[in-house]
């Protein structure tokens, strides 16, 4: 039943448009309408991707990027959720630290790449500095907002049923804030992917990001586009993965459709 529902949720018209765009792209390149040697047709990109996969290097790069996303996102979740909870529960902490957060938050993570390079050289650590710093904010802000915006009525309900302060937090406030925390976690994950790729392009010569640069410098546009396509697909899969996991763990928090 679950898989049947998943199939019925696939956006067929949207996919058809995508297929048409790819076909048009293929036709335009083959007909020679676009005469630019670094703009390969989708079929050539696919062939390039298969080459890379056969070679084993694509898998290696993919695993590296996945690893750095996993580490970077986990650190960001840990920091973001704990600080977010603190900010959400304590108006005092919020009052004293929100100004600092608003100053730090707009700073692009990539601006810290030179610092990472000074500290750690061309390494996974540098990649993590660039990935973690901007990734912390969405989950932190959403956790804070989720807690601070819980209906005060829920605390009344907890008290009339004689729950302790601790039980009110655990059984009422945290579950009520969970959907907002999950949204923050998803935004952070998408950002972690972007920042890992950026870091691999400028700071750590490994992974899918470096693959793009490497193939560009080797003048292999098919392989370069293949890497870009893999990054795109990875983004879609990661998001779907979090959504799937969420609906498995907490079915009631999944966005509802109609009534």
């Amino acid at each position, binding site marked *: 039943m679950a898989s049947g529902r998943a199939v019925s949720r696939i956006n067929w018209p949207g996919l058809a448009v995508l297929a048409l765009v790819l076909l048009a792209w293929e036709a335009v390149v083959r007909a020679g309408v676009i005469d630019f040697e670094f703009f390969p047709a989708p079929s050539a990109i696919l062939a390039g991707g298969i080459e890379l996969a056969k070679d084993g290097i694509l898998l290696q790069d993919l695993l590296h990027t996945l690893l750095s996303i996993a580490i970077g996102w986990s650190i960001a979740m840990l920091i973001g959720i704990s600080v977010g909870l603190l900010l959400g529960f304590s108006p005092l902490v919020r009052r004293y630290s929100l100004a600092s957060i608003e100053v730090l938050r707009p700073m692009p993570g990539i601006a810290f790449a030179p610092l990472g390079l000074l500290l750690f050289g061309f390494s996974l650590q540098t990649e993590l500095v660039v990935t973690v710093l901007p990734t912390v904010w969405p989950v932190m802000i959403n956790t804070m907002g989720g807690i601070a915006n819980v209906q005060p*009525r*829920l605390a009344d*309900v907890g*008290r*009339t*049923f*004689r729950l302790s302060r601790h039980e009110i937090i655990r059984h009422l406030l945290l579950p009520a804030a*969970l959907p907002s925390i999950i949204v923050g976690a998803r935004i952070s994950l998408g950002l972690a992917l972007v920042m890992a790729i950026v870091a691999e392009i400028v700071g750590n010569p490994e992974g899918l990001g470096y693959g793009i640069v490497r193939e560009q410098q080797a003048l292999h546009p098919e392989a370069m586009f293949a890497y870009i396509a893999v990054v795109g697909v990875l983004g879609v899969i990661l998001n779907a993965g979090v959504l799937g996991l969420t609906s498995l763990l*907490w079915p009631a928090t999944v966005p509802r459709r109609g009534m």
Partner: protein
Amino acid sequence: MLDPVFECRSASVTLALRDGPRPIIADISLEVHSAEFLSIVGPSGTGKTTLLRMLGGLLQPTGGEVLVKGQVMTGPPEDVVIVFQDYANALLQWRTVASNVSFGIERVLPRKECADRVRQALDLVGLLGRAEDYPWQLSGGMQQRVQIARALALRPAVMLMDEPFAALDAMTKAGLQDELLRLRDQTKTSFVFITHDIEEATYLGDRVAVLNGSPGRIEQVVAIDLPFPRDQIATRQLPEFLEYRYRLHKAIGHG
């Protein structure tokens, strides 16, 4: 059971606001007996909700005292539970109907007994068939019945209700009023029912207390001597009903 269940002895609540202390309710003395239905009626701004929160132990009286079964109350008492007006906020949207109803008892009772009580409570409010639905799949009237079932599962001595039907349409409201009277007969629970609707207060109550003024005081308590079972059509056109209605309107200061 000790009678009265509730007793207020010149209780008052004064809030400390930025521009000084503001008395909300003053000199409240009243008793609630076991299995009694006490309606409290009053215009808005007279502290009805404050009074109910004080009875529920969410708010400490700043003067006088409140006794539950002869004991001075210091926090939310055992056996007393509040049903709120805003059911959508008061229900746990991430839990099923059955799991909402078990919320108040699941930490105290063994699993089996908990399940039995949930079933009984849902049966009492006619929602057994919707046990596995989520609150947002139910109509407003059904959601309010879930909240009532959640309170009933606790088998409370007193249910405090804060304008519970104010957000519902007239027909749903009438149905739930009769359901409450039936529940009172079946469970011998006492009800303290706050409303701004004089007819509702009269139809349901054994007594109606009039809260008026600022700070709010109990200006009158009217014993309602109307025959049971009450009937939405017959009771409401009895000359006595109309007389009570007139008296209460007068007491509140209309006409």
